[in-house]
């Protein structure tokens, strides 16, 4: 049962800022002036536009996906990305993943 997950993503969608973009921008400004690469990155599609493009690409699997469905998929993908950005909070470089989940004694 996963509707709690949807509620979480719904909350994340309501957030007005992209944590990814905020964190990238602040990190850059603290270290050095923008380089050419960063300036180019600023012209890249917004996360919402990127999510929409990715959602559109799902028509290669199901050409019958409607525009409304594509919009919903894009919204979900964007929500997952925003929620995903929060997952990095509190982690430091050396924090290990649990690649194989196992319960000890």
């Amino acid at each position, binding site marked *: 049962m996963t509707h709690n997950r949807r509620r979480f993503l719904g909350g994340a969608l309501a957030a007005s800022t992209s944590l990814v973009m905020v964190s990238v921008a602040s990190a850059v400004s603290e270290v050095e002036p923008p380089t050419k690469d960063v300036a180019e990155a600023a012209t890249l599609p917004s996360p919402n536009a990127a999510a929409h493009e990715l959602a559109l690409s799902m028509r290669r699997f199901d050409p019958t996906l409607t525009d409304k469905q594509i919009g919903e998929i894009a919204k979900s*993908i964007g929500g997952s990305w925003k929620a995903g950005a929060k997952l990095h909070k509190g982690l430091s470089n050396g924090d290990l993943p649990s690649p194989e989940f196992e319960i000890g004694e």
Partner: protein
Amino acid sequence: VTGKDLAFSDATTLGTLIAKKQISSLELTNLYLSRLERYGPAYGAVVTILHDRARTEARAADAALARGTRKSALHGVPYGVKDLLAAAGAPTTWGAQPYRNQVFDYDATVIERLYSAGAVLLAKLSMVELAGGFGYNEADASFTGPGRTPWNRNYWSGGSSSGPGAAVAAGLVGFAIGSETDGSIMVPSAFCGVTGLRPTYGRVSRYGAMALMWSSDKLGPLARSARDTELVLRTISGADPMDDSAKTRPFKVKRGRARIAVIARSTEKSQPAVVANFESSLAVLADVADVGGQVKLPEEDYGGVFGALLNGECAAAFRDLIESGRSRELRSPEDRIGGYEQYATLAVDFVDAMRQRRKIDRAIREMIAPYDALAFPTLPTVAYPVGLPFDKVYTSTQGVIDPTTAANLAGIPAISLPNGFGEHGLPTGLCLIGNPWSEAQLTSIGKGYQSRTTFHLRRPSLV
């Protein structure tokens, strides 16, 4: 003893009656088969009734008993399984239209073990399609239609083990096997007023079971008593060469009184009857355990971590389905597109979720270690109405703390016990979570609770 009394007896009692030859396994099997046919469709509880297999196994159980062989306490007792477990030669649909004609030529390990114990497989029971992996948002999310709780057909039986919950509550099987990735045994147990046991991750082999999320899928019993859940779990547990994650671990109960604390804020936003029933339950538990103190669930992003892991694992598990475009055949509108969202999961998010999970795992175990169990209401509400989106009902309870997701991330066991009734005559549940491998401790507490209450003995009026 009437047929109805038999149908609603717990598996332990049924096994004893069969052993004493007060009823044969075949007679009991025929009783349940007729009840499955009569009531199963009304509650959306059944996918496939296995008439021939059930009668063959029942006759074999009776013949063995006649020779003086009783294989176990479950010898001759009929049961059902969620339709995500392979049963040789029968459809195994995973609740989903694209898999409606799927047939395996072998039995899942759980079914093999129950067969070896002399139990009788009656039926494949309904479930939410793909165990809810694609993000359904309404009860009508299976090709068999919505599961309905026997306490009030206008309300959901819970998911994703909808059929096991409803079939046990309606006396259509002696017990049932369900599965849980994040709530799928606990929720139907609470919504249907039955006892459900979610084992420690790795206690039960998943060979032959549909995979949804390898790092969180568990198989466990739904039954009419805590003692039944322990009996069934002991029967199906243990290492299996076909599933590397399955382990043999002892069942331990500590000497003396158990120590139980309450999860702080766990009744916030709950319906009044849920709160009242929970407080009454604590008073009863105080007879059998030392109940006191509150523990705070560590503040972590449980939903986010679980969601990222589920998205990645589920998309991999159902990659063939997603890439085939056949998601469009699923019942729930959310499920028809949910796989595409998951397919786009970022690898960095998935890895960060695994890193967060390690921290959560440690924090949850430290939280629970001083106690034998932590208590909270299984759910803040009674069952959701059929026909309305989940996120449009009981909106005042949204945002409550979620010990179930936290416990599933940590892989620790839980039991849900019927503890009263609330709105619309619907049941409520008491949940106890325990330390890793402490299922027998939880069932011990559950048995003590049920020796002082009668909620698990109540019967719904069937239509």
